[in-house]
């Protein structure tokens, strides 16, 4: 059974059709990278998975269960299983790095403070920021903030992690550290859906690459297929521009 299964997913904002009949499957342990020009609906597709956007029609299946119809308290409970990392990090500015990471497990998983703290320090070590545990987000670089955001998402032990252009807001020299962390997560078997413009990451890490344009999934395949031998003209055109 697929971890995530989007079935005939469509999303409109008023008259604007952003997603048209999207069908995507993501298996456990898979790293799927979604590429495409801006405005192609990549982010909206990602936000439909954790219900930050509600699909206009179609289904979002999570481990076989249709979550797109969930209401009330079931929605936040479902989101415990699906972590998200945002383009603009969105750390909580009044909390320290450590508190950013422990807030959700303490409040939502009812984890004892000490245990949550231990685990948060472990996660921060993993992203190379243990020494910044007591710093406030505003004192960190963008790359550091994004790595904290990854640790924060991991603290809930999600089944899958969604990345919404995680390196697009970073200075070029800071991108590498974040991609390193993502790569090591992928190696540990984390299920990941990554919207990105980092073609190098897609080539090296993705099990599968999906090219989206104008709300459609235009083409999908292994990185090898997509980058060396794209079958669709639009994919070829896009890759010619970005590579």
């Amino acid at each position, binding site marked *: 059974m697929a971890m995530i299964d989007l079935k005939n997913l469509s999303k409109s904002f008023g008259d604007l059709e952003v997603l048209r009949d999207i069908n995507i499957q993501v298996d456990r342990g898979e790293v799927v990278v979604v590429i495409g020009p801006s405005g192609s609906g990549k982010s909206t597709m990602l936000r439909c998975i*954790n219900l*930050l956007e509600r699909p206009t029609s179609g289904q979002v299946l999570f481990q076989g269960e249709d979550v797109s119809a969930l209401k009330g*308290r079931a929605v*936040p*409970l479902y*989101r*415990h299983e*699906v*972590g*998200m990392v*945002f383009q*603009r990090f*969105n*750390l*909580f*500015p*009044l909390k320290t790095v450590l508190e950013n990471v422990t*807030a*959700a497990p303490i*409040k*939502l998983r009812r984890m004892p403070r000490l245990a949550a703290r231990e685990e948060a320090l472990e996660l921060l070590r993993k992203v190379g920021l243990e020494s910044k545990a007591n710093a*406030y987000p*505003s004192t960190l670089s963008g790359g550091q903030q994004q790595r904290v*955001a990854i640790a*924060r*998402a991991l603290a*809930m032990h999600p089944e899958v992690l969604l990345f919404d252009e995680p390196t697009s807001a970073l200075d070029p020299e800071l991108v590498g550290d974040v991609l390193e962390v993502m790569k090591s997560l992928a190696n540990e078997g984390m299920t990941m859906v990554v919207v990105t413009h980092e073609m190098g990451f897609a080539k090296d890490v993705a099990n599968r690459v999906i090219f989206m344009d104008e709300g459609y999934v235009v083409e999908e395949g292994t990185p090898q297929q997509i980058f060396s031998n794209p079958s669709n003209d639009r994919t070829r055109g896009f890759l010619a521009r970005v590579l």
Partner: protein
Amino acid sequence: MELHFEKAFAQLAPELWNGVGIVVYITVLGFLFSLVVALLLAIGRLSRSKIVRGTLVTLIEIVRGTPLLVQFFYLYYVVPVLLSALAGLFGAHVSIQLEPVTCGIIGFAINYGAYLSEVIRSAIVAIDPGQREAGLALGFSESQVLFGFIIPPALRNSVPVFGNYLVMMIKDTSLLAMISVQELLLRTKAFASQTFMTVEAYTILAGVYLAISLPLSQVVKVLERRLAKSR
């Protein structure tokens, strides 16, 4: 014209000192209650219900559209009559009265509550929507996000504005002289009419207000700079 500031000060100071106690008492309670009212109004205005929002906006506009002094008069002279009449409808024949100081605190809570609710509301709206999304994505509910990640920074960002309103409230306590609260202005007026040291009395009064509000304004400015730095 012969002025006797020393003599006036010696006689008036103890009076004013007692008045300052009342002013501080009313301001502290009035301001705390106004913050509570403001927060409730601001949260209520985020409601999905159009009726709730419309009612609150109307109430806020009524409060903001009438002078504070008129509101104090209304609380002091009209509200007790209405309450007594209401009690009469239920067969209880009582004459309800409100202490002037109580009217002052309630009046400030309502009036400043209305103004401060706008301050808090715009601070809430100004919080980056990414904060809400980050909270939701972690699995917090809408209300946990509001109280955990939106309102705290919004209140914090409002602190300098709160400070300015606090200074204004201290000065506005002088309006309460009109409903016989023994604050600074009323005491000074009594003193001036008894001693005919009019110039001295009111000059000293103005000085006392300045002595309170200028340092407080400075504190607010320092606070503002600190908050701006650590964001």
